[in-house]
């Protein structure tokens, strides 16, 4: 079971080459949280169009007849789904399961996952990028924002790690 995953350095090189091709072809880095946001924006736009047009936040995504679903970041996120699925199929990892420490209940794990996702994407919207969009891509173009965001994410995760120890170990 030791070599279940690709060697981390090789996987890192692969990921680095994907990032490099994004920079080379499209002149931009990778991003994930943005895609989620565009999904939300398009749902809100479909459900309550007048609200979306009034809001200072949503309105900029509908300017000039833009469609938030046909956007670079949204398509990229659909690509991530496809790519993850292909990789899972190749390496035979396609199973429905809840991954957690045996010490906690399923409900607790799922609740925390939900809250965690909420926090993460909220923070990512504030910082204008998540681990991929700000930290990873930012570092690859030597942007100060990338380094600062990276240190803030990992620094605070280390700080909070002590409180959530039980959930993981």
């Amino acid at each position: 079971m030791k070599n279940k995953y690709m060697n981390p350095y090789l996987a890192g090189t692969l990921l680095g080459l994907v990032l490099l091709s994004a920079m080379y072809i499209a002149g931009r880095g990778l991003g994930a949280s943005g895609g989620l946001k565009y999904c939300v924006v398009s749902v809100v736009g479909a459900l309550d169009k007048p609200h979306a047009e009034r809001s200072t936040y949503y309105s900029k995504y509908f300017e000039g007849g833009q469609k938030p679903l046909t956007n670079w970041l949204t398509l990229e996120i659909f690509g991530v789904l496809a790519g993850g699925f292909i990789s899972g199929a190749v390496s035979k990892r396609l199973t429905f399961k809840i991954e957690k420490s045996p010490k906690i209940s399923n409900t607790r794990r799922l609740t925390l996952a939900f809250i965690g996702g909420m926090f993460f994407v909220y923070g990512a919207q504030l910082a204008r990028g998540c681990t991929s969009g700000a930290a990873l891509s930012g570092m690859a173009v030597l942007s100060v924002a990338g380094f600062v965001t990276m240190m803030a994410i990992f620094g605070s995760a280390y700080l909070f790690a002590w409180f959530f120890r039980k959930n993981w170990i």
Partner: protein
Amino acid sequence: MGPFTSISGFPAWLDLLIAFIIGTGFGFALEQAGFSSSRKLVGMFYGYDTTVIKVFFTASIVALVGSQFLSYFGLLNLNLVFVNEYYVTAAIVGGVIMGAGFIMGGFCPGTGVSALSIGKIDALFYVLGGLTGAFLFAETYPLIQHLADNAYRGPVKINEVLGLTPGLFTLLLIAAAVIMFWLAELAEKKFARPDITNQI
């Protein structure tokens, strides 16, 4: 010469196809690295599995080194590659919130989606939470707009701040990463938790 989309102005459908293909590569690499497993990801914060730091730094350094060589060979115009804009307060506060979300949820958005694709139910809840987070952000945007736009510094590059050439800074970053990789392997031995690592 790259980047092609900003220079040649590809048609929209091709642009989106490229986005999808790059996303596919992104998801594939994340899943292969084992980032579809939350316990593997958070292992970094308890020391028993340091894959995150290895993959993360290898990837950004490979892209950094590659882009600089491409630029030297005249194949890539680095001035046309997006550089993240630095909003000091937002980057720090946002980063801290993300860190908290990371340790609670066990994923970051990219890895969450990648884990969802192979059927992790916790990842499904994580992504749903993420969508809620984006919704909450949009609704509370007027309240935190000031915080988000505070202390804007523009797209500054770290080597310019430090007064180094990009090449020299890259070398220093690589040296730091190599030391980190070495420490990471030591940590994996010291904090080894075979009971967990065998499961994931």
